[in-house]
């Protein structure tokens, strides 16, 4: 989706066009759900929260300023949905790994080794405290700038930088030589 397309869909959505908003949902649903899944470690909860986030986004579309970062705005709403859900103290089932990893097709030995590494990485990321995990995933997976992350998480840019630093450091320590190139 180009920037112009996005702006067009936003304007049409703000005018009440469902199909334009559906296009935005289709574009941003996966990344919002992936981030929430990374934070909750619960695919079902992440799906529900994503739905809630988009519904709230639809309701609050008039407050969005065209020209600003729509994706960061969505992440901000998603974060608030997550906070609200935790405030309600809804029990969250803990799953060690997202399903996505197991869905990959089996391949040669090299692929298996690679998959093993990814499993280890995902487990290590899941063990990070959420205060470090949230900015780390926004930076690494979603490629938001530190400034955008600061807005999403309502932190200072310095704090975001420090938390990403901390996450990387902990992960490198935890994974150690598992990240070294495969011997083959």
């Amino acid at each position, binding site marked *: 989706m180009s920037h112009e397309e996005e702006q067009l869909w936003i304007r049409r959505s703000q005018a009440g066009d469902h199909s334009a908003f559906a296009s935005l949902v289709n574009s941003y649903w996966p990344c919002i759900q992936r981030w929430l899944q990374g934070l909750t470690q619960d695919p079902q909860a992440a799906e529900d929260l994503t739905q809630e986030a988009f519904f709230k986004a639809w309701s609050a579309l008039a407050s969005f300023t065209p020209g600003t970062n729509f994706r960061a705005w969505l992440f901000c709403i998603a974060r608030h949905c997550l906070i609200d859900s935790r405030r309600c103290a809804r029990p969250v089932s803990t799953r060690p790994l997202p399903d996505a990893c197991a869905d990959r097709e089996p391949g040669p030995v090299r692929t298996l080794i690679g998959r093993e590494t990814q499993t280890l990485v995902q487990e290590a990321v899941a063990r990070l405290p959420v205060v470090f995990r949230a900015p780390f995933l926004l930076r690494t997976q979603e490629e938001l700038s530190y400034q955008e992350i600061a807005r999403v998480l309502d932190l200072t840019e310095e704090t975001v930088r*420090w938390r990403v630093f901390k996450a990387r450091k902990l992960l490198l320590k935890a994974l150690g030589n598992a990240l070294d190139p495969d011997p083959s």
Partner: protein
Amino acid sequence: MKCRAVRAWMLTDETPQRPPPRLRRHLQRCPRCRKRYGRLVRLIHEVQEVPLPSTDCPARMQLLERLAAVPSSAPPPVILRPPRRVAFVGRWVAAAVLLLTIGTGLLVLNRKRNDPPQPWPSPAPTATAPAERPLEDRVLQQHLRLAEADGPTEQLDALASMAADLRTESLRAARRGADKDVAYLAWLHARVVEEGIVPSAVGLSAEGKDSLPRVLAQLRRTEAEVREARKASPKASGPLEVLEETAREAIRALEGDPAVRRPARPSEKPPVELASRDLLRVLVAESLLVVGEDDPARRAGHSSRVADSLARALVAKGEAADPKEAARLGENLSDVVNRGVMSNLEQVDPEDADEEQKEEAAQARKRAGEAVAAVKRNLLQLPEAARHGLERALENKRPDKPREHGKGKGKGPRKEKPRKPPGRPHGQGH
């Protein structure tokens, strides 16, 4: 470039996958850094490779159905859209603003034609410090930068930002006619410039001198803005004179005027006592002591005194605490404990440390732990909303607890130790 600086860059940079040439050269030379860098790149790649969830899920379909239930001709169920009446009033407000803008423009044009004194310039917010955050927050951020700085250049930048924040606030206070505040802030500004900036800048290596033009530009801006402010408001001229004089002397010293090698240090005592600025005073004093301090245990000690003052400020609020302010102070406290205290304590090697260092480290840990504990003990005194925000801000902040993987209080990036600038700042002044 040193290995320590490279490692800190890798962990903090926004795009470590794209190293600058200087870093690439180091990586080619140094097998240890190359190995570590390879691991980081692999880590980032593996995290990015986590597949996106499918859009073909029931929740998305449900959402689209929920949205479809609203008639498409109707506007979205906007809860934040202003009602008609507000929009009507808004048109009048817009018209008034337009008229005011035109009027101000004409006035300015007319004044320019008659060549009168320039209007008082509005102090622009500094790049590192958004204007809406309280001064104490902004100075705290610079304290943390100093505690984590890569070297003297970054420390100098942090000091320059701190001085700019104090200048901006002084000018605001002068506009309010708060003379005592102006005098107090000008004194703090003088301490930052004369005990921090000048000695640090004079002691910079040839490479580090690149940052001097930025610092000089800040000082010149201070001098110019204060001069204009004094013209516009003769009543505030006295306290502001200190600010202008400080900037002028520092410029001369940094430009190498042989007559002024080092400006005189300001008094350790403030010109007036202002209890409302106690926290700020501690922040500035401890920040000046962090500058050029090589011993991480001592740096942690200075930050732990800041933590102690923050906790006292928070506890003193008691029932009067505003929820947002309590959450803000709580976040500041957790930041300073994590980044100022614990990050430095992590650098103290128990096997290498002498008795004095161990004692200093133990004291810093104890002080920070007590600060957090004091706030937690007093949580019940706070209004419920304030308590909630504060508890969230303090989560995961227990410096007195042993660390576990993933729960440690991290150390900030400290790539290379700053060299001690010639001349140490004197006492803490509190």
